[in-house]
C-alpha cells in the first residue's frame, strides 16, 4: 500500500445551487472519452458502435444515444465524437476501448472539462446572456449538440431534458465559467 492517498477533487467541488426558476449543478460523475475515427475506418466504427451500443455514428452537431440510454455520443466533427457516460473513476478510457476495440483512437477527456447542468424554466433566459446559440426548443432540440463560446470560453452545449442543458467547458477555467453563469442568473432574476 502506498503511503499516500489520492483523492479526486471535482473542478468546482461538486457545486450545486438553486435559484428562482434555475438550477445549476456540477455533474461530477460524467466521463468523457474522445473517439477519433481512423481515416477510412467509418464502416468499422459504425459496426463497432452498432454492435457495442446499438447506435449510429452521430453527425457533427448531433448526438446519438446507446440503446440502453447510458452513453451519449456527441458528434464533434465528421471524424470525432465524444462518448459521455456516468463513470466515477479515471478509467473511462478502458470502458470505451474495451467496447469498441481498435475501431477508433481514444483519448480520455473527462478531466479536460467541467460539466454543468443548467435547468429550469428560466434556464434559457440565463443562457441568453452569454450563449450565442439559438436555444429555442424547436431550433435546438434534444439530439443536437453545439460548440460555441461563452464569455471567451469554449463550450460544448446540448439539451439533456426539457429546459435542461449540459455545458462542458475547460476545467482549468471552471471558476470563471461558473462565475459567468452565476452572473447571468443574477442578472435575470
Amino acid at each position: 500500500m502506498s503511503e499516500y492517498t489520492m483523492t479526486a477533487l471535482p473542478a468546482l467541488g461538486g457545486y450545486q445551487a438553486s435559484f428562482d426558476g434555475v438550477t445549476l449543478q456540477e455533474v461530477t460523475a460524467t466521463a468523457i472519452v474522445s473517439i477519433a475515427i481512423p481515416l477510412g475506418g467509418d464502416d468499422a466504427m459504425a459496426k463497432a458502435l452498432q454492435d457495442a451500443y446499438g447506435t449510429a455514428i452521430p453527425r457533427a452537431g448531433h448526438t446519438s444515444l446507446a440503446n440502453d440510454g447510458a452513453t451519449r455520443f456527441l458528434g464533434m466533427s465528421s471524424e470525432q465524437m465524444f462518448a459521455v457516460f456516468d463513470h466515477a473513476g479515471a478509467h473511462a478510457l478502458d470502458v470505451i476501448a474495451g467496447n469498441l476495440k481498435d475501431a477508433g483512437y481514444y483519448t480520455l477527456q473527462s478531466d479536460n472539462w467541467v460539466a454543468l447542468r443548467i435547468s429550469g424554466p428560466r434556464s434559457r433566459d440565463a443562457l441568453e446572456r452569454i450563449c450565442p446559440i439559438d436555444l429555442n426548443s424547436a431550433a435546438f432540440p434534444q439530439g443536437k449538440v453545439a460548440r460555441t463560446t461563452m464569455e471567451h470560453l469554449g463550450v460544448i452545449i446540448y439539451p439533456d431534458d426539457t429546459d435542461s442543458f449540459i455545458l462542458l467547458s475547460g476545467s482549468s477555467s471552471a471558476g470563471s465559467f461558473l462565475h459567468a453563469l452565476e452572473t447571468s442568473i443574477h442578472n435575470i432574476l
Partner: protein
Amino acid sequence: MTQKNRITGGLVDRSTTLNFSFNGNRFQGHPGDTLASALLANGQIMMGRSFKYHRPRGALSAGSEEPNALVQLRKGSHQEPNTRATVAELFEGLEATSQNHRGSLENDFMEITDLFSRFLSAGFYYKTFMWPKSFWEKVYEPIIRHSAGLGRISFEPDPDIYDKGFLHCDLLVIGGGPAGLSAALAAGRSGARVIIADEDFMIGGRLNAETLEVDGISGSEWAARAAVELAAMDNVRLMARTTVYGAYDHGIYGALERVTDHLVTSNGKPRQILWRVYSRRAVLCAGATERPIAFGNNDRPGVMLAGAVRAYANRWGVSPGKRVAIFTNNDDGWRTASDLSRQGVNISAVIDTRDGEPRAQIPGATIAMGGRVMDTRGRKAIHSIKLVDGRTIDADCLAVSGGWNPNIHLTGHQRGRPAWREDISTFVPGQDLPAGMSVAGAANGTFTLAAALAEGHAASDRALSDLGMTPKGGDIAKAEDEAANVTAFWHVSESKARAWLDQQNDVTVKDIKLAHRESFRSVEHLKRYTTLGMATDQGKTANMLALALMAECTGKTIPETGTTIFRPPYTPIPMGALAGRSRGKDFRPYRLTPSHKWAEEQGAIFVTTGMWLRSQWFPQPGETHWRESVDREVAATRGSVGICDVTTLGKIDIQGRDAAEFLNKVYVNGFATLDVGKVRYGLMLREDGMAMDDGTTARLGKNHFVMTTTTANAGPVFRHMEFCRQCLWPDMDVHLISTTDGWAQFAVAGPNARKLLQKVVDSDHSITNEDFPFMACGEITVCGGTTARLFRISFSGELAYEIAVPARYGDSLIRALMAAGEEFNVVAYGTEALGVMRIEKGHAAGNELTGQTTAANLGMGRMVSKKKDCIGNVLSERPALNQDDDLRLVGFKPVNKSEALASGAHFIARGKSAVMANDEGWMSSVTFSPELGHSIGLGFIKSGQERMGEIVRAVDLVHNKDIEVEIVSPHFIDPEGDRLRV
C-alpha cells in the same frame, strides 16, 4: 412651480405626480413624461447652451434626433452627460443639470464667444492657430479643449453594471410605430418568432403623437392594444426602450435595451443590455425625422419642429407656448395648427411657403400663404417672429416643418446608397439593402397612415413567404391617408441674420457657403470642415438642409451632391454597455492549475501568463524580497529537490497510423524513428522558416504521441497542426485533441528527484536510471493505482522528471509530493526560479522564440534535418537567413561581476558609438544566477559562436546603462549535461 404649460389630453398619468429637479430647481411631472415634456410643462423652455457660441437653446424635437436639449442626468459617479432630455423618461427624484456653460445656464460667461462669431466660422482653427507653431500643443489646444466638449464625465468608476445577450428570431421588426406594429402583428399571428424593438418607452411611435384613428379607435389606443396582444404571444418578444443601432453581416443587428434608466436605482441589476440579434429577416420601420427650415435666428428657445410641438400637445398634454406660430412647406405643419387649436392653444399665425389656399381654417391665426419667416426676436426664448414681408407676429413658440426625412440609416450600414424621391423631396432606401432587410412605412417614404399600415403588413407577409412560412396575419388595420403634400423649401434666402442648419455643432448657412467658396464641396469634406452632422445627433435634423444648400451652391441636384455614409450606432451607445461585463477582474477568464488551492495556502505570489495564474514564487517567513525567495528555491532545487506546477504547458494528444510521419513534417528534426517509451525535444518552424515553438513529444505507443508546447503557444500550435492535418495533408491518418486541462503535471527536479518520486510511484514501475533513463517516458500508476504518466525530461538542467495525473488528482498529488519530499527538504518553486534555471542552463524560451528568430539564430541550425522535408524547411534556407555573420544565441556575463545585466540592451563594440549602425544584437533574457553568484544573460549577437571570450558593451539607452560584457557559452551550468543522466 406649477405646470403652467400643461393642457388637456395626453397620455401621461395625471393621477401620479413625480418630483424632479433641473439645475437645482424643483419641478413636478407625471409618469409618461420625458424630462423635456415635463420641463416644457413647467415653462422651462431653455434647456442648454450651444456647443460653439454658447447660445441659449431649448428642445427642438421630441425624440432621439434632439440636437439641443442635452443634459447631465443623475449625480456623482452615476452622472451621465449628453442625455437627451427628449427621450429621458421621467422618474421620481430625477436630477438633471444643463451643460456647456460657465456660470449659470441663464448667465453663461462663455456667451461672449457669440459676439466673436464672425471670427469663428468653419475651419477657423486651421486658419487662426497657425502661429507660432509651438503654441499649438502648449497654448491653443489646451484652451480650445477646455472651452469645447459636450458635458463632463464624473471621472469616477461607473458603479452601474451592464450585460450583453443574444437573441434569435424569424423576423426582427425595427420600430413600433404603425408600420412596425402592423408587421409584428401579421408575423406574430402567423406563428413566426418575432422580435419588435422600439427606442421609446411607449410602443406606438407617431400614433401616440397624433389624433388619427386606426380601426375606429384612437391611434394610441390601437397601439396600446396591439402591444398587449403582442406581449401575450409566446412567439413574440416586445422590446420597448430598445434601440436597434446597427445592421451587421448575415442578418445580425445590434440593439441597446435601457433596462433601468427609467428607475431611481438599478438595484444591482444591469442598467443596460447590449443585444446581438440574429434575424432571418428584418423589417425596418424606423419612421421619419422632421427637418427644420433655415432662417435667421432659428435656433432660439421656442423654435421647434412642428411634429414635436404636436407630439407635446397630443401625447404629453403640454403646449410649449401660449401663442404658437407655424412655419411650414407642407400639409403636415397644418395639422400642428389644427391639433393645438382644438386643444385651445392660441395659434398666432400659419406661414406656408407655398402659394394657394390655406389648408385648414385656424381660428384667430394670421395666415400667410407664400410667406417666409426671416428672423426671430427674444434672447432666451422667442417672443416674436418677423416675416419677409416686414410683418412682426407675436409668438412664444414657432413650430417649423420643412418636411420629413425617412430614417434610412440602418439601410446604409453596409454601404447601401439611398435613392432620391422628388415627390417627397427626400432620400428613401435604395436597392442595395442589407441582406434580409426590407423597409416599410415612413422609413420607406410612405408617410400616410393607411399606407404605412398596409406596407408593414405586406413586408411581413413577404418575409414569411421567403422563409417558407404561411402568412396568416389577417386583415390590415383600417385607417385614412392624411394629406401629406410637400414642396421643397430649405432656407429663407432673405434672412440677414445667421441661420442654423446644425444646431448641435453651430453650423450655419454661412458656414456651408464658406466651405463651398473654399472648395470643400464633397459632402464628406463638408462634414469634416464644418463639423456638420457630428456628435451625438449625427446631424439627423441638419444633414438634409446642408446637402440642399451645397447643391444650391454648386448648381447640382441634391442626389448628385450625395450623402455621407451612415455608420453604426444610430444613436449613442454608452461605453459601459459596449464593455458589458468585461471590467476589472472580469475582463477575461482565468485558468487555474490543479495545485492553485494548495499554492494559495502556501502564500504563493501569482503571475498571469496568458489566461493562466501561475505561482511566481513562494515567499517564506522572514523573506522580504522576491529575490530571497527565488534564490532559495533555485538553491534548494539544485541542492536537493524542487517541484513546479507545469500544467500550463500545452499538451496535444496525437494518434493515427501516420502520426509519426506527421510529426516528421511539423518538426524540423526526425520523429519517425523515436522509440516507444522515449521523449524527444522538437523544434517547429513556421512556413517562412522562422522558429515557431519548441517542446518535447513523447511516444506512448506505435501510433500514439503526446506533444507538449510552450504555455503561450498551446493554442496557436494546435491550430497550426489542425491546419496541416486538414488542409495540407488530408490523406494522413492523424487525429489531434488537446489534453492540456486534463492532466495535472509537475516538474520534480534536483539530485533527489528520483528518491522522492520512488516514494509515490507504485513499486511495480521501476524508475531507476537503468530502467528509466534520461528522455524515457511511460504510463505508470502512483499512490496505489492512480493512473499517471512519467517523463524524464529537464528544463532546469538537473536530474528531473515531469509527472502527470488526471487533473482531478492534481491537488492530491502536489500534497503527496511535498509530503514525500519533506525528508529531502523539498521546495516548491515558481516561474521565476524556473526562469533562472533555464537561463543558467541556456534553454531558449519566449524571449528567444519571438517569431523573428531562426533555428540557426537559436543555435539549433543543425537540428533542421535535410534527410526529410518539414514545414519551414525551404524558406529557412533563404540566403538572407544564412549569412556568415548571422545572429547566434550565446551567453553573456558582466566583466564587472557586481553589475546587473538588463534585457533589451543592445550590443555595441568597444569604442563605437551607440547608434543603430553599430548595433550587433540584443540581450534577450537576464537573471541573477545563485549558482554563479552574479548576473548572467542570454542574447543574440552577430557570429556569436565564434566570439567566445570577446568583450562587448551592453548598452541600454532606456535605462542609461552601458556596461562591458563577455561573450560566453549559453550553458552556464553543467554544459555536458552530466546532471541530467545520473
